[in-house]
């Protein structure tokens, strides 16, 4: 088996456009999932008990089943209940829901780690609920859970490969197709590994940078 990268090289524009798809879908879905996860965690902490239990069920079901199966049911099962989504919106929604369950657990731990005294101090000087969330909880949370958020974002990035099952033209689908059209499996796989590895390294590096920035206001004891 000879290895010849020129085969893959000729398809570079197509690969780059798929790479771009992977990146933007990943970034948008991660942002949405972080927001939804935060809302879920906040509602679980401050909302009524029944909502807490309901959301707990949501989180456990989403965490307990593979993304592939969720996506399949959403995309191919949706139309039977009147929810017919195009591939990219379906992929974004699926990833957002999937990620939100994990992010909400990270935030739940973060909420528990913020000393209750910090909230009490805010109550004492008269901050309202919303102000407490915006001015105290969110920034403190950011520095507490940043490493886990980055970790989870990286896991989500690799899950984007599964979007291929609903025909989203992302990196794995396109490079895989080129590989099997041209019978250049090893070349295609190497290419895939390189692209993902570069993405992971870059986002890990950004995460460490942000951590360093935030470490200035570590908790004073």
């Amino acid at each position, binding site marked *: *088996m000879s290895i010849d990268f020129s085969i893959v090289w000729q398809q570079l524009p197509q690969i780059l456009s798929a790479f771009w798809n992977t990146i933007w879908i990943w970034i948008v879905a991660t942002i949405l999932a972080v927001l939804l996860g935060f809302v879920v965690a906040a509602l679980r902490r401050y909302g009524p008990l029944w909502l807490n239990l309901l959301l707990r069920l949501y989180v*456990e*079901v989403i*965490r*307990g*089943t*593979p*993304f*592939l*199966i*969720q996506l*399949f*049911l959403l995309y*191919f*099962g949706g139309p*039977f209940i009147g929810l017919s989504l195009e591939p990219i919106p379906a992929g974004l929604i699926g990833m957002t829901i999937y990620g939100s369950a994990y992010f909400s657990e990270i935030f739940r731990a973060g909420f528990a780690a913020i000393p209750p005294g910090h909230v009490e101090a805010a109550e004492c000087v008269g901050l309202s609920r919303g102000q407490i969330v915006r001015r105290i909880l969110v920034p403190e949370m950011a520095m507490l859970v940043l490493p886990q958020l980055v970790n989870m974002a*990286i*896991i989500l990035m*690799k899950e984007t*490969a599964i979007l291929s099952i609903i025909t989203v033209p992302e990196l*794995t689908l396109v490079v895989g197709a080129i590989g099997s059209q041209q019978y250049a*499996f*090893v070349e295609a*796989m190497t290419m*895939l*590994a390189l692209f*993902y*590895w570069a993405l*992971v*390294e870059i986002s890990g590096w950004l995460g460490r940078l942000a951590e360093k920035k935030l470490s200035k206001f570590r908790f004073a004891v």
Partner: protein
Amino acid sequence: MSTRLFELMLWAAGKTVLLSAISIAIGLAIGLLVCAAKLSPRKLLSIPATIYVSLFRGVPLLVQLLLIYNLLPVLGIMVPSDVAAIAGLSLCTAAYQAENLRGGFNSVPRGLIEAADMVGMSPWQQLRRIRAPIAFRLTLPALVNEMILILKASSLISVVGVIELTRMAQNLSASTFRPLLFYSVAGAIYLVICWLVAGGGSLAERLMRTGSSR
């Protein structure tokens, strides 16, 4: 769905659980070694460990599996499907578990180690009696998380010829053309397995709580 097909799904679920469990155990052992190497002050150990973690966390599991299964034979090493699946899963999870454990070891309070120094424990005794048990308690939730992730990620091992739960669902929907049914059943089985693992995890956490730090 006939009971026979349901049995098939359960058989495949058993395969998923078995291979995942073996991989998690082997991965934990490798992860411990990698973690020890990464914590080592010797560059000769810590740099390769860092590269290992970076590679195996960075490259998608699917690609790792295909490379193990299809590249090694080219080099003259035949790997049976099950072995390739276990190798891929355990090498991958080892990288994540090494990082979890490293976090655990790093957050063992320095004072507890100094106290062990003061009563004359050797480094090995400290590791065995103080550092490892405390680090393990700290990392248990992350380990449980990783187990669940590996259980689910094991759906990828069909690419090296192992028929596990997801692949069985695909196979059966391919002959009956009723994918929604089989995917729903597979999802439900995954859910039950993950719940059992998570339940076991929180039980273990509760059992160890008496000894938790203040």
